[in-house]
């Protein structure tokens, strides 16, 4: 047992740190520090910087433009990006659709889409949820009917993150209405500029615009945009969700938020001292910090096990639960730390707390994760 970093890992950390310090545009860093929402161009600018260095998709196989980093190095990379206030790479292309294409897609799909993700030519979004199908995703009713060399898609997807910026969407649609639930679902890649695709914004309770409705009306998509086999979509969808969960724990980002929380608490004056110096509040922060430290080592243990067995385990479910609960606890403390300043709608303190209620709902709600663990890990 040895939890220290090797000299090579420490050198690697220095390299990443220097890279972020030198390359992250100050305007983006400022937004990240202040908790201001990023715009499309901010994301794209940073993705291009990472891509130029070959670091946009560390998890991909080297032959497609990934890295041969160890688990520990990937962990260090995430940490250093967070510490340096760099934006987290958006998952939809790099860590959602790409692993599906790499594992189940055709050679043409790999050749076409992977380079376009690395170059930021394509912005992907995830078309899973529907108004009538959330947790019970397999009940989805969007249809894709064969017509000559095309599928014709009709239906509505909802809660689609950053669809307003996307030009590509991966859609779960029913290709066989007679097959039972999971069986008739296919995984289809859709160009959002195709006639019949409409994107409508949904405002969230923090006043932000990060989710959308995406409507499909007689949208014609070439048959070759099917990934894998027709009716095999549910398998790919679940494969993707397991990858998604690992990312949603947000451990490195939570350490970043914790620093901001401490700053807020140190700026709040109270009775000749600061909130941070009040034992009560400092203790509440410490409690979250301890739990986050525990989660961080838990994630390392899971990653170590994963690299030994070569498959993401069920640990990703409890890491998602704990990670999102911690994110919510930190944003709750931010709102409280702000005191009367949190009432001001120019302050992000309360708004971030409102926004982060999403984390226990998306990527498979925390209740669904507990169901999965009860069934598959505890055998209940």
């Amino acid at each position, binding site marked *: *047992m040895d939890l220290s970093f090797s000299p090579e890992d420490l050198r690697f950390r220095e390299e990443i740190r220097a890279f972020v310090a030198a390359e992250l545009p100050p305007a983006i860093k400022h937004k990240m520090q202040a908790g201001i929402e990023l715009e499309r161009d901010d994301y794209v600018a940073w993705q291009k910087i990472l891509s130029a260095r070959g670091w946009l998709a560390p998890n991909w196989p080297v032959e497609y433009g990934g890295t041969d980093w160890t688990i520990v190095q990937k962990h260090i990379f995430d940490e250093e990006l967070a510490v340096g206030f760099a934006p987290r790479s958006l998952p939809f292309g790099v860590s959602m659709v790409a692993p599906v294409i790499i594992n189940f897609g055709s050679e043409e799909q790999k050749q076409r889409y992977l380079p376009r993700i690395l170059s930021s030519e394509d912005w992907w979004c995830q078309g899973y949820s529907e108004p009538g199908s959330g947790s019970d995703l397999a009940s989805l009713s969007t249809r894709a009917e064969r017509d000559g060399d095309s599928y014709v898609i009709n239906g509505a997807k909802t809660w689609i993150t950053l669809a307003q910026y996307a030009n590509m969407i991966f859609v779960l649609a029913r290709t066989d209405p007679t097959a039972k639930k999971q069986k008739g679902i296919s995984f289809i890649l859709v160009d959002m500029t195709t006639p019949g695709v409409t994107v409508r914004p949904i405002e969230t309770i923090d006043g932000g615009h990060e989710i959308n409705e995406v409507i499909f009306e007689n949208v014609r998509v070439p048959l070759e945009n099917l990934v894998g086999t027709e009716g095999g979509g549910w398998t790919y969808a679940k494969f993707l969700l397991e990858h998604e969960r690992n990312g949603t724990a947000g451990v490195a980002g939570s350490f970043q938020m914790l620093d901001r929380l401490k700053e807020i608490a140190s700026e709040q004056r109270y009775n000749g001292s600061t909130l941070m110096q009040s034992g009560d509040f400092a*203790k509440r922060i410490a409690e979250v910090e301890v739990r986050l430290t*525990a*989660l961080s080592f838990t994630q*390392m243990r899971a990653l*170590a096990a994963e690299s030994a067995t070569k498959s993401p385990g069920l640990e990703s479910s*409890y890491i998602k639960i704990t990670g999102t609960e911690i994110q919510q606890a930190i944003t709750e403390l931010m709102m409280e730390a702000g005191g009367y300043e949190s009432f001001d709608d120019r302050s992000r303190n309360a708004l971030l707390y409102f926004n982060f209620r999403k984390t226990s709902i998306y990527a498979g709600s925390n209740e669904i994760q507990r169901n999965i663990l*009860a069934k598959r890990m505890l055998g209940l």
Partner: protein
Amino acid sequence: MDFTLSSEQQQIKESVDRFVADAYGFDARMALSKSADGFSRDHWSTFAELGWLGIALPEDRGGFGGTPVETMIVMEAFGKALVLEPFVPTVVLGGTALAYGGTNAAHGDRLNAMIAGDVLLALAYAEGNSRYDPSIVGTTAKPDGSGWIVDGTKRAVAYGAAADTYVVSVRTGGGEHDEDGITLVLIDRDAPGVSRVDYRTVDGQRASDVTFSGVRIGADAVLGEPGKGLGLLEYVLDSGVAALCAEAVGNMSVMQKTTVDYIKAREQFGVPIGSFQVLQHRAVDMLIEVELSRSMLYYGTVAIDPNGDAKERMRAISGTKAQIGRSGRVVGESAIQLHGGIGMSEEYMIGHYFKRMSMLGLALGDTDFHLRRFIAAGNKSGGEGSGIGSAGKQLAGVN
């Protein structure tokens, strides 16, 4: 970064697991707990024969040169079986104090006798006015010729009746709250002027309040440097906390597994109660707490390093104890609740794990104490001195 055990460590684990499986069935444990000593001297001899009593102590002090990971392995297995023998007081607390504070041949002999299984030790540091804070010491040692005369009372000395010798924190200078002026000394249980009130603890172990009235000790009783004992004491206590945390993780994992098995088997309304979603989710939460605790245990354990940075060690250990204190509550309380009435029954095992876990949450500092210590260790600009010698005023301003 490596979370695996070496092959030697794996062998130790197998050997401790085997001992526990053979000798520590629940009924045997309950009978031992009710015996005169509250533990088995035969088992203790077995520990000595198997080499467990010197397992983590340095080779140049007669130990077997292992690391805190070896202690962790032993204590986790002990935690799984609610082992009663005074391993932490004697080996981890007493042994560490002697190994790193010993200054003369007699100390070395004492340590060797402990490793051989012939001598039991205990740490006497807590007082009525100190709660868990080792820097508050009211027990005095007044100069007397070349030695000292000790007066004061120490609380909750684990297995104080069985221990042959106590490691006692005394004040040789400064006021009750000063960090300087604290000295660790050895006092024999049977020395003139030592008296005890012995009692059973709620978790089936033994403890004593020990009073020293005009107890004479020589200059050779001092461990480490006179007046500079706090750094050593903190290191000793942190080693003890790590060991208790390992015991807690063993204990918790049994409660978690037992509860899952129980709710699969127990039927109400014609179905296993484990089919009810509220209970499933509570069972998952127990699992999460055990896993978080295990991760922290590894982090805390490897931070125990006599040459490492003291602040980092304190922060890691206190964070670990705080997490495990909280998790232990969640796991223990849920275990009782999910068992229903049988959880309240003294005859059934789960309640005994719960009781031990509850006391582990308090022993050597509760969650509140360790959260404050975690904060204080993080706020100090660390690195000003390393290892055992530097304690610093880590609790300044937070008490």
